[in-house]
Structures are given as C-alpha cells and as structure tokens.
C-alpha cells in the first residue's frame, strides 16, 4: 500500500498558510503575456506561416512554461530546503512512510501545483479572448504530463545539488531553454540542424503538447510529445529514487 497521498496532504496543510504564492505564480506568466504577447505582438502582427495572431501563438507556450516552473520550483527549491535544512523527511521516515512514498508524494504534489497554476492562467487567457477552440481544454491533462516530467527531473537534479550556489547552474540551463524552445517565435526561424536540436528539448515538446490543440490541430505529433514527457518523468524517478534512499537512509 502506498502512502504517498499523505505527503500531498502534508503539503496541502502548509499551503493553507501560503496560498498567496499561487497568486504570484499566476501573476508572472500574465505579465509575460501582456508584455510579449500583446506588447511585442503589436510589433509582430501575425506569425509568419501560421496566420495566427501573435498573442494567441505565445499564450500556450507561456502555459507550458508555467506548468514547468510550477512543478520544478517545488521539487528543486522547496524540496532542497526540506531535504537539507528543515530535515522534514528525516522525521517522516521514522514512521511507516518510505522513501518511495516521499518521492512519489512530492512529484504528485508538484504536478498538481503545476496544473493548478496552469488552470489559473488558462482562465485569464480565456477572459482575454485568446482561446478559440474547446480543444484548448486539453491544456489541463497536458499540464499534468508536463508537471510530471519536470517534477521528476527536478527531483533527480536536486539529489545532485550541494548548496544554493548550484542553483545558478540550473538557471543556466533553464533560461536558454525558455528563450529558444519556440516560446516566442516558430521553429522555422532556425536553420535545419538547429531545428533538430530544439526539437529534442523537453520544453519544446511541452509547448507542442499545448500549442497544437489550442490552435485546433489534433494529430499524432501530440502523442510523440506526451510519450517523450512521460518517459522523461519515469527516468527522472528511476534516477532519483536510489539516490534519495542513499542520502536519507545512510
């Protein structure tokens, strides 16, 4: 029997004290949407080759990014604090809870967080009139898959971190990915070899997973993206679990 839901329950209890963070997490992508989507969108007009208005093109990418950040913040920053400084898991593991319960519970919680942030953002995007098809609702299960992939990957990365300085390295990977994974302009801008490299990025696959349905395109490409992200999530857990055991049960 798994007790991972108890960890979700614990985090939910903490969240009752800090729910205002959710507001902030939705606030940030909204700022990006207004500045880039609408501000720069005025300068861009329609996206070449797609005939889509720029804000409508950028919004799903920002949704995917929000799901990614929401989940990954949880299993990197917050989890590192709990693991190394608050030593929350040390006391949890003196009960019948196991390391697996803890790891699965945290990932599950993180993907819920990511999905919640995305839902809030989706509501705002809809209010702004940027949603034109019911397929956009696929963003919710999509966000859960994105959340799972990045929460697990974040957990795996966190087991390698030594101190807060190392978070700079994460930034050094995340920032270029955010900038280059077709968040702000289509893949066609790049020469073919660069296109291939970009297509390998997990954020590119995440954006595809949300952008295509929101533009009304439903095709097998979605399945590729979903499978890619699910495999990434499973791999992340497979790496993280034995390493966490070694750290916590020394």
């Amino acid at each position, binding site marked *: 029997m798994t*007790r991972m839901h*108890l960890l979700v*329950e*614990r985090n939910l*209890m*903490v969240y009752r*004290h*800090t729910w205002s963070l959710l507001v902030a997490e939705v606030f940030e992508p909204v700022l990006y949407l207004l500045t880039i989507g609408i501000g720069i969108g005025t300068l861009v007009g329609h996206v070449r080759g797609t005939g889509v208005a720029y804000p409508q093109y950028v919004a799903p990418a920002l949704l995917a990014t929000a799901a990614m950040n929401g989940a990954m913040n949880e299993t990197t920053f917050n989890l590192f604090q709990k693991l190394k400084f*608050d*030593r*929350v898991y*040390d*006391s*949890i*593991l*003196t*009960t*019948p*809870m*196991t390391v697996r319960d803890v790891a699965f519970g945290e990932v599950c919680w993180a993907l819920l967080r990511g999905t919640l942030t995305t839902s809030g953002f989706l509501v705002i995007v809809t209010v702004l009139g940027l949603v034109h098809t019911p397929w956009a609702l696929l963003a919710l299960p999509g966000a859960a898959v994105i959340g799972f992939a990045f929460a697990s990957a974040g957990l795996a990365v966190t087991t390698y971190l030594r101190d807060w300085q190392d978070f700079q390295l994460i930034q050094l990977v995340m920032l270029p990915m955010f900038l280059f994974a077709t968040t702000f302009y289509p893949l066609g801008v790049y020469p073919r070899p660069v296109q291939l490299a970009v297509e390998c990025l997990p954020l590119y696959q995440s954006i595809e997973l949300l952008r295509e349905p929101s533009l009304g395109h439903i095709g097998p490409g979605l399945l590729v993206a979903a499978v890619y992200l699910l495999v990434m999530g499973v791999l992340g857990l497979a790496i993280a679990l034995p390493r966490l055991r*070694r750290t*916590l*049960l*020394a």
Partner: protein
Amino acid sequence: MADEILVRASGLVKVHPMGGVRAVDGIDFELRKGEAFGFLGPNGAGKSSTMRMIGCVSTPSAGELRIFGLDPATDGARIRARLGVVPQEDTVDTELTVRENLYIYGRYFGLSRARIRERTAGLLEFAQLEDKASEQVGALSGGMRRRLTIARSLINEPEILLLDEPTTGLDPQARHVLWDRLFRLKQEGVTLILTTHYMDEAEQLCDRLVVMDRGRIADEGSPRELIERHSTREVLELRFPPGEQAIRAEKVTDIAERLEVLPDRVLLYVEDGEAALAAVHARGVTPITALVRRATLEDVFLTLTGRTLVD
C-alpha cells in the same frame, strides 16, 4: 511476559558509506519489555548510529538485528509503526502549527482523523503545550520544541520509545521538566531506549545501560552495578595551579586505590574521602581546592576508557 525481549542485536556493525568509518563495530545487547535502557558514551561513540539502526532508518552493515522478532531489512515499515522516535535534532515541521504537527504525524502512521483528535488533547497536556496548539512551530522555545517532538513520537502509542540525546542543548529547568515527563512514561510501562553523554541523566532514567566507546561496548549493567564494579565509593578531587597537576599528584599516589590526572585536576579513588584529604594535608600538599563526592558514571567511563565523557 516481563522478560519478553523486544530488541536483540548480535555482532551489529555500521560502516558509513561516505568515508568508510566503522561507527558501530560489533555490538551485542538485548532489550527487555518495560525497561529503560541507555547507551552512555561521548560524542562519536556510535550511539546515534545504533539508534538509527533500531529505528529502521539505517541498514546494518553486518551482524543481526531483530526488533519485535522482525527483520528491519524486510519489515521496516511494520516495525516503525510500533516505534516512537525522538531524534537528536528536533525535526518538527516548522511550516506547520503545533496541532498540525501532531495531526499529520498521526496520519503518517495511518491513524484515523477521529483517533488523532482523541490522542491530541492528551498529548498537548502531556507536553504542556495546550495554549500553544495553534502557533507556528517556528515561534516555540527549544524546550517546547523538544516536548513537542516527544509528544509527536507518542501519537501512535509506541511500544518502544527511542530518545537520542533527549536533553542536549536544553537549559537546566527545561531538562528537569523533560526528565519528569519521561519518568511518567516509564511508570506507564513504555519501554525506553535512550542515548546520552550526561551521566546524571543516565543515573536518573536508566534501569540498565551499556557504556559505549569507539563503536564498541565497554561494559553493561545497572548504574549502581557499574559504579561498584569500576569505581571506589568516593572520589577526592584536588585542584592545583595550572600545569602542576602531574607533579603534585606524584606525592599522593599511594593514598588512593587509583588516581587519574586530568588537565585541570587530580582524581583520587578512595573508600573514605575525608580521611584521604586529611592524609593529603598531612603530607604538606595543599591544593587550591578540594572536593569529596560520591563516585558517578563519569568515573566509570573514565576508568573504562581513560577519557572523560564531555570534553
């Protein structure tokens, strides 16, 4: 039933993966139901490593360990369900309130919400935290946190309570409050295992203890037995000017059964302290201060290992 063995260890070893230190180096002991059992030793003796193995959060490197007759390697979760653990550092959940801490911890044990509510009132009273129940744990004093940790460890009505250095870092008043609480638990029949490097704590709380040093057990028995076995009835402590302890000690060596020279004082192990002090004065040796006291576990430890407990 009274002799039921709850924990049995033989040839137990713990080698830490990082650095390969043999923290526990082949120890044997048995713990019987209802007793208060102590591990006495200085920092680094291997007490905490032993406790973590009993708590099933650390896998033994070699040897055999059985708790409630079960193997921690395969039945860790089942064993932990029947244990209460008070770790050396308070690991209360600082993001939650006092009541929430008790609640979520009870949930980890699979207790129903109703059962937890029932237990919480009694535990808050036991820990003298009734009026702090809704406060964030971050705002509690060290003594209160410690009491919360102990209350939390009792939520599942454990058959064995593991306490690692329960009073380290507390002020004297908080320590006495805590001893009183632990004594009450003992009266109620809870089996206690505790580690300490305070001899007074071991004497107050433990029915039986083992003296640990460098990962091994030096001896085992009740506090009284250990003192009788390894020390004289009384101890005369003489203090000389700095740097002169050894030179002065030479002149009084034959007065004592045994003599220890420490950096700041000389200990004479004797049956009658006052008589020994008179003999010292008769030799024309005048210490700065002289003190006669009963022998304690500190002396046992010094005899067994040649080192002091707290350095």
